């Protein structure tokens, strides 16, 4: 097997194109797992997914099974789902509440904070062995929580979380501050689905305005306008929808704001809407926001970004109101976890509309995601051909693009700058300047 040296990796990414091996080569994927997913902050979940003491959930972080739990004192922990005795996973339920995790193999027991609580027939061990040996479930090397968003790292050697998130912290704040209580709640479960394609195909798609009117043409009606997706609650909740003419490229799309920051983070500005939010439910929301934030209410209620994409694997979708986690399974398989978020304290009708919107657009049957996934799978298959080695990402190269992974940049429209910014970060992580 070839092993990619730094020069070979660097050669995969050029200013306006990337080599197909960037997406399809299993060796490259293994290096990504080590140098990107193994070394920077990853998203694992939101604390509101384990609201009560004793609550837990199981998930994976960079392919490794983990447990996120809340102990009897309310503290949240993230630990590897692996018995410290012989290696068995100690819990396979997706979520639940427990005081202790018991290994099925020899009934070793761990408290819900991960601490070792005992092994049967301890006399079989040398005196003091079980006390001396470190037998607690092993915690992820680093964990940080910001406004309920739980981050972990597989290495202790990671940049400071504030430095890593940089201006993207404002995007988390902006989402939480739309709630009158300043909190979001992941209280409706999750969707999980997967597609047979590389993780970066989706990451790069998320600031790709260019594809919307083509990939998603079937979500428009004869006039080229977006279908409604929320069902009856939409009007009731005073929710607005994406402005007309999804089906063709016009000035509206070219003016659309895009941007990004150091470390590969990117975002897409808010789509133009067909009307202002209004109605009795919206008025109630506005009143509660004014009560909570005073003069700041209007500012907090204004959604400025459609989505915020945090490198390497998750995003906040502000308008559709969910967290999207993109977990790489293998070079050609990616699993999505969609976590809808409720704005705590906002009218229930708004939450119902948001929940229905998530069902209709981002569930496994979602009318938006299914066409996206189709395209990513087709890309991955097409890239396997010997046709040509390069994928062209030159759109917007004729315009000023100040992104160099040293600071922030602004771009607009159908430019492929978002993908290029992620790729600059990729080079730095893979070649040692991350």
């Amino acid at each position, binding site marked *: 097997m070839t092993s990619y040296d730094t020069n070979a990796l660097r050669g995969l990414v050029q200013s306006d194109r990337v080599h197909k091996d960037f997406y399809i080569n299993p060796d490259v994927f293994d290096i990504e797992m080590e140098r990107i997913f193994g070394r920077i902050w990853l998203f694992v979940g939101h604390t509101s997914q384990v609201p009560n003491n004793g609550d837990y959930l199981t998930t994976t972080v960079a392919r490794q099974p983990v447990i996120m739990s809340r102990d009897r004192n309310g503290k949240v922990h993230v630990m590897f789902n692996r018995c410290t005795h012989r290696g068995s996973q100690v819990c396979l339920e*997706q979520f639940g509440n427990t005081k202790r995790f018991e290994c099925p193999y020899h009934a070793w027991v761990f408290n819900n904070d991960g601490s070792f609580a005992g092994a049967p027939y301890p006399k079989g061990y040398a005196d003091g062995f079980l006390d001396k040996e470190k037998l607690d479930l092993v915690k992820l090397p680093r964990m940080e929580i910001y406004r309920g968003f739980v981050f972990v790292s597989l290495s202790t050697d990671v940049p400071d979380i504030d430095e890593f998130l940089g201006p993207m912290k404002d995007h988390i704040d902006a989402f939480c501050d739309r709630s009158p209580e300043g909190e979001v709640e992941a209280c*409706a*479960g*999750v*969707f*999980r*689905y*997967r*597609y047979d394609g590389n993780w970066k195909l989706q990451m790069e798609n998320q600031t790709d305005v260019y594809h919307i009117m083509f*990939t998603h*043409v*079937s*979500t428009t*009606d004869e006039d080229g306008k977006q*279908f*409604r*997706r929320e*069902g*009856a609650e939409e009007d009731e909740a005073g929710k607005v929808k994406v402005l007309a003419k999804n089906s063709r490229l016009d000035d509206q799309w070219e003016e659309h704001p895009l941007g990004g920051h150091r470390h590969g983070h990117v975002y897409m500005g808010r789509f133009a809407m067909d009307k202002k939010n209004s109605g009795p439910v919206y008025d109630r929301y506005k009143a509660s926001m004014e009560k909570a934030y005073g003069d700041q209410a209007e500012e907090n209620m204004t959604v400025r970004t459609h989505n915020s994409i945090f490198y390497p694997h998750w995003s906040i979708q502000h308008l559709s109101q969910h967290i999207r986690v993109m977990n790489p399974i293998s070079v050609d398989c990616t*699993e999505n976890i*969609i976590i*809808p978020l409720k704005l705590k304290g906002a009218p229930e009708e708004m*939450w*119902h509309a948001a*929940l*229905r919107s*998530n*069902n*209709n657009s981002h*569930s*496994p*049957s*979602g*009318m938006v*995601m*299914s*066409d996206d*996934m*189709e*395209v990513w799978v087709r890309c991955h298959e097409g890239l396997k051909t010997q046709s040509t080695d390069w994928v062209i990402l030159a759109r917007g190269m004729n315009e000023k693009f100040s992104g160099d992974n040293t600071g922030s940049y602004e771009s607009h429209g159908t430019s492929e700058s978002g993908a290029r910014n992620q790729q600059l970060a990729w080079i730095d992580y893979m070649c040692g300047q991350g």
Partner: protein
Amino acid sequence: MLADIEKYLYREVRLLDERRFEEWTDLFTEDGYYWVPAYPNQTDPYKAVSIFFDDRQVMRTRLSRLDHPNIHAQKPPSRTVHIVSNIEIDEKHDVEGEILVHSTLQMMEFRLDKQTHYGGRAQHLLLKTDDGFMLKWKRVDLINCDGVFEPLAIPF
């Protein structure tokens, strides 16, 4: 009665297999809905996410999308076969003019050299009308409802 119900349920799923989506939608009452929960034992579609929770309006959106010439996720289209069996009338459901029917439902789907098999329990709430049955709601509880899915297009 059971024979009429069987006939109705067989036709209901046949409309999906034959991609007669508009006719399928028209089986539902105006306030009818189609629900596929994403977790077992759900009682309220506003408490948790759903794989499908379509009122007539969303159904029409979804199904007119299925007829769109550029629905990429269905080019080429899926072929499906739905299998309904173990049909039982709920004796405990005692509402005048309504019949609650339980059944088991399977759907085989074939697209792009891949065959997928779904299965679960279905419930139909039928309204007796002068012109036969109307569907007030259909609910499908898949055995893999909280599992990992590939994209879905055709209702179960």
